[in-house]
């Protein structure tokens, strides 16, 4: 689930999925420890290498970055242990220098290709770089990222524009989300960046953004 606090997932047919997974695919599998589903109370004893392997499998299967916490909950194993296991795994992956790397992004872990292979991958996928944000949207996003939570009038004020169309674009692209109301006249809605923002801009979390003051030198010096 993206941006937990803000979103609800929608699916067409969950019941069907269960049947497929449980019925079809899994019957063919070799039996696993039987106490798994039963032993809700007890922890599972896993060797470090088993833990790493299972974490790798879960990271691969998850359709978005998955946190050590989620993995620790699924496996009922201490979060620290899982975190350490994944960090070890990431090191191995990255030392391997293969086609994949394991990275921390948007509060979770993800397997992804390396940037240096992008041309070959694009050639294969026949994909072009995805639609870019307009400069207006990008500047608006920067304002929101650094001033969040912030209301529409405040954003427009900073940018000296009257049209909120860039804000609407960012909302449509799910790069920003509503963050409650401001307790002033009219209780305007406040906005902030989303998990999708972290993913698209390759950030672990917001603290990874350089401080806005770091841009001051650039700004002053330009003239």
């Amino acid at each position, binding site marked *: 689930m*993206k*941006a937990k606090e*803000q*979103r609800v*997932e*929608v*699916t*067409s047919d969950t019941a*069907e*999925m269960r049947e*497929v*997974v449980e019925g079809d*695919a899994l019957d063919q599998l070799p039996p696993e420890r039987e106490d798994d589903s039963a032993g809700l109370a007890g922890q599972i004893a896993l060797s470090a290498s088993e833990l790493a392997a299972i974490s790798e499998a879960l990271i*691969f*299967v998850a*359709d978005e970055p998955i946190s050590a916490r989620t993995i620790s909950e699924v496996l009922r194993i201490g979060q620290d242990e899982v975190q350490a296991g994944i960090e070890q795994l990431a090191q191995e992956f990255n030392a391997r220098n293969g086609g994949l790397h394991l990275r921390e992004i948007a509060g979770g872990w*993800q*397997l*992804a*290709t390396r*940037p*240096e292979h*992008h041309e070959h991958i694009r050639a294969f*996928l026949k994909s072009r*770089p*995805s639609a*870019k*944000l*307009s*400069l*207006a949207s*990008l500047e608006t*996003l*920067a*304002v929101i*990222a*650094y001033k969040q939570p912030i209301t529409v009038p405040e954003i427009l004020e*900073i*940018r*000296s*524009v*009257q*049209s909120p*169309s*860039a804000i609407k*674009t960012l*909302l449509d692209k*799910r790069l920003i*989300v509503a963050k409650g109301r401001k307790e002033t006249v009219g209780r305007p809605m406040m906005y902030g960046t989303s998990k999708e923002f972290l993913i*698209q*801009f*390759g*950030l672990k979390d917001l603290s990874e953004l350089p401080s*806005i003051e770091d*841009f001051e030198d*650039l*700004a*002053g010096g*330009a*003239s």
Partner: protein
Amino acid sequence: MKTDETSEIEMTSHAAAAAPAVATTINVAGASPEISSNQDGEDLKIVLGEFAGPLDLLLHLIRQEQVSIYDIPVARITEEYLRYLQLMKDLDIALAGDFLVMAATLIDLKSRMLLPRDPLAEGEGEDLTDPRAELINRLLEHEKFKAAAQMLWSRATVERAVFARAELETDKQNPEVAVGLFDLLTVFQKILARHKEEVLMEIEREEITMADMIDRLRNMVRSAGELNLFRFFEQARSRRELVLAFLSILELVRASEISLIQRETFGDIVARSMG
């Protein structure tokens, strides 16, 4: 000029004929448009730079004129700014109101710069601040966010070179559409709009009879052999039709033409032909 996209204007052949003349005179904002030789000039496409807002344009002009942001020659910059707006007007490009508001601000600033300081206000020590101060602060602030936008841009560029895995079977089994708060509102508005339309249509629609409804059900079950009743109900356009649909099911069950099957508690109910 739109604020969102790079403006592209295609001019007609008439305009193209005049293009070379225009080309030599366009020199606004220090921009020297390059015009490739006009081979036979049927079309003229003008690509304008993208200014994300009036502050962007202003910053550009300040840089163009190579003046200090802390000591803006207001008269000169205002003139350049207005020339740019005039060019946009000449080219018949709709300008966002933002640019006009800024023009007004600049003109106001220019006139205030020309006025001698109010001696009374000076006495109170309030008007000692540069009338340009507010604008300068805005520009400085804007430059910071512009630099931040640039940083985001390069991050996104790198990120676009990184690929996650393709969709797996397990994703498809669990298709997810993330729904945010505004989706809830959008969906609600759509429903209201749809509702309004249906109310209008209902007035004109011919009323269906019980016999029609029984025929419809019979045909639907027969043609497919099996019919999910929810699908049947969904065809009902009004509460009245819904009631008729329900009654027609009861009728065919009573006549033993169909049987009803529910595979799981609260699951969908399926009608099957008994013929």
